[in-house]
């Protein structure tokens, strides 16, 4: 891409913002302007709320937004995955119906993939979708569903055919969450938070036009959704920060962020809080212990290396020379978190036995110690990450498997939950 194109895009977005940006607008009204003009998602097609710009120019548009403090489209949570999936695989009806309200933040989405019987092995999903008359009828259970309790729509993976191999009998639906057949129950985690839900379907209904794909293609779309999810899971992940400014739109954004981030409030602790290590070592005096110093150094070295590796991966992608470093971010984040847990424990000593207000930093340290196990499981376990690295990056031969080539009904499965 040429500098001339970059300059003209910069001039164009700057002029448009001069003309249109007004922090006293309502959030939805402003985002509707973004959808109409295409400046909220400039890399999307012109026909669907974008401007057909190369992805490489998006940072220029973001810079101009930042310069005047302009608010962007809604990006938190599953809605981004929903938008990417609908944009790539949805019908015009889906795009018409859902994309705008995703961008404005009016609709919240959730992802109905994991089940009690299928976590890593998502293609073994047992939730059934059957065609009855002119409706699809869904029965079964999903789990680990973030934001299900306030979601308007869910991306649903469900089985339509048990007589074909597991990957071929799945369909991908858009399911309306607010209906009688859908029950949402919070799921309490070992760290005491309940950030996720269990979702039960009892004759829940889906209109035929909300089937996105079925047969072999249902699973294919699910894997692209997962790929987008993993890509967002490396150590580069960051959360949006609100502005303190007083105008109406900033107050609305702050409220939106607070609601959207609620399930993720322990996520920094899940990642190990490497940022607190030196401060804690000084305040406890453990920085005088040569053994602790060695462990601190090991951790900080690994954390810096992981950060630099993520940046190398990003630079390589931008330069068009993607290498193996691109698939390592999630695994590296797991190892950093686990090491941080060990070092925080060494630093805290006996205090590591306490929790809540009796524990250091009003419970933050305790929350680290019981939250890091999540990071090596959520969004693809370390074991699955390693299988992917071994088979797809290193091209090692696949392990023989016994579930892929026979009808799903004949594959051994977990007992149904009571």
């Amino acid at each position: 891409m040429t500098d001339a194109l970059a300059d003209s895009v910069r001039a164009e977005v700057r002029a448009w913002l001069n003309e249109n940006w007004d922090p006293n607008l309502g959030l939805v009204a402003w985002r509707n302007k973004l959808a109409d003009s295409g400046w909220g998602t400039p890399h999307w097609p012109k026909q669907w709320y974008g401007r057909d710009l190369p992805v490489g120019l998006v940072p220029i548009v973001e810079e101009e937004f930042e310069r005047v403090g302009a608010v962007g489209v809604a990006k938190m949570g599953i809605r981004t995955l929903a938008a990417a999936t609908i944009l790539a695989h949805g019908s015009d009806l889906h795009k018409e119906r859902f994309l705008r309200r995703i961008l404005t933040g009016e609709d919240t989405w959730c992802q109905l993939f994991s089940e009690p019987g299928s976590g890593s092995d998502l293609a073994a999903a047992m939730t059934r979708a059957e065609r009855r008359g002119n409706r699809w009828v869904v029965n079964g259970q999903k789990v680990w569903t973030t934001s299900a309790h306030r979601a308007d729509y869910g991306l649903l993976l469900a089985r339509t055919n048990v007589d074909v191999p597991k990957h071929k009998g799945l369909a991908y639906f858009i399911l309306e969450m607010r209906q009688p057949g859908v029950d949402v129950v919070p799921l309490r985690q070992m760290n005491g938070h309940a950030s996720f839900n269990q979702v039960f379907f009892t004759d829940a209904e889906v209109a035929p036009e909300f089937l996105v794909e079925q047969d072999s293609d249902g699973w294919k779309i699910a894997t692209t959704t997962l790929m987008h999810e993993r890509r967002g899971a490396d150590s580069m992940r960051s959360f949006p920060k609100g502005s303190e400014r007083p105008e109406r739109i900033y107050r609305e954004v702050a409220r939106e962020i607070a609601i959207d981030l609620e399930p993720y409030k322990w996520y920094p602790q899940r990642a190990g809080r490497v940022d607190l290590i030196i401060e804690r070592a000084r305040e406890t005096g453990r920085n005088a212990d040569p053994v602790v110093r060695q462990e601190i150094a090991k951790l900080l070295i690994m954390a810096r290396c992981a950060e630099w590796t993520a940046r190398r991966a990003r630079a390589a992608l931008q330069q068009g020379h993607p290498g193996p470093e691109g698939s390592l971010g999630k695994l590296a984040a797991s190892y950093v978190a686990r090491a941080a847990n060990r070092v925080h424990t060494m630093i805290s000593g006996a205090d590591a036995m306490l929790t809540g207000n009796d524990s250091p930093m009003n419970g933050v340290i305790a929350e680290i110690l019981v939250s890091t196990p999540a990071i090596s499981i959520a969004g693809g376990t370390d074991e699955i990450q390693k299988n992917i690295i071994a088979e797809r990056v290193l091209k090692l031969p696949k392990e023989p498997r016994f579930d892929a080539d026979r009808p799903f009904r004949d594959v051994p499965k977990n007992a149904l939950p009571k």
Partner: protein
Amino acid sequence: MRFNFTDEQREFRSVVRRFLEDKSPSSEVRRLMQTDAGCDGEVWRDLSRDLGLTALHIPEVYGGQGFGISELAIAIEEMGRALLCAPYFASTVLATTAILKAGSDVQKRALLPDLAAGRTIAAFAFTEENGRWDHGGVATTATRIGDKYRLDGVKSFVVDGHTASTVVVLARRPGSAEADGLSLFTVRGDAAGLQRRRLETMDQTRKLARLTFSAVEAELLGAEGAASGPLQATLDIAAICLANEMVGGAERLRESAVEYAKMRVQFGRAIGSFQSLQHKAADMLLDVELAKSAAYYAAAAADEGDDELPALASLAKAAASEAYMQTAIHTVQIHGGIGFTWDNDTHLWFKRAKSSEVLLGDSAHHRERLMRLWNV
């Protein structure tokens, strides 16, 4: 360019790699490691004259190419990959950098053009028999006699010290201690009173020597008593280069382990299809890539005059030490029994990993230094 290489740098790497694949196959490594000099004169001439690798980070005014540490690091990463037997680390990295950091303009004009052209091979004698990598371990004395100096003492673990025609020596004013009173000197390899003995090294591809100085006449390099700063700056650059050499070797081992796992059949299938082995291979990739990130970042930082350079040098060396040795251990393990034999090449890199692990300070030393530099 801390996170990527330029197109020119990528092209340079591929030129060096092709050259080394041609000139330093493992059969050559095995032949040369059994010789006293541990180097093929013709290959040294080619890499100096044709590729200009000995001139990379020497400024043009001193007969060099005027590139940076990033290019030096690329060259030495490739040498680590090929396990090249040559006095490159001793002469181009250690001794040349010491002269660049410490020497006066006149001295640089006198010494560097021959080093740049590969006509002179130099070594850097700073460690002594106590094996300490900091100035505190220096006991060799330099006594002033007129405008000359007389060196007395024993230097050890001197990389390629037995063959170098010029030796840069670290010594101290009699009665001084720690960073005080340190100076650098140059001595001819065949100077009267200098006894040199090659040490028997576990890693035969990197030769070490013990040098005994008995009233050896020496030329002062740079200012008298002011060597502490240049010494540390040299060792930081050397640690960064060594880290890059190590990640080159580690990557080569990692690749050989994966290749073998694809080929070797047990229980009716390639062993690379077993998850226990796949997961080890994934961890090896992570180890090597993380260490590469630190080595590359530190080399780029050296060219940008980063204040954090000493910390980054220690970080990169500690990361590479752990990653190379761990990779070597896994690579032997993945090869199984054959990996423990002399005929299999793995042990050549395993031993280089071991010698590099401690050369210029092991990872515990560098981690503690990092903590001090970060004021923990």
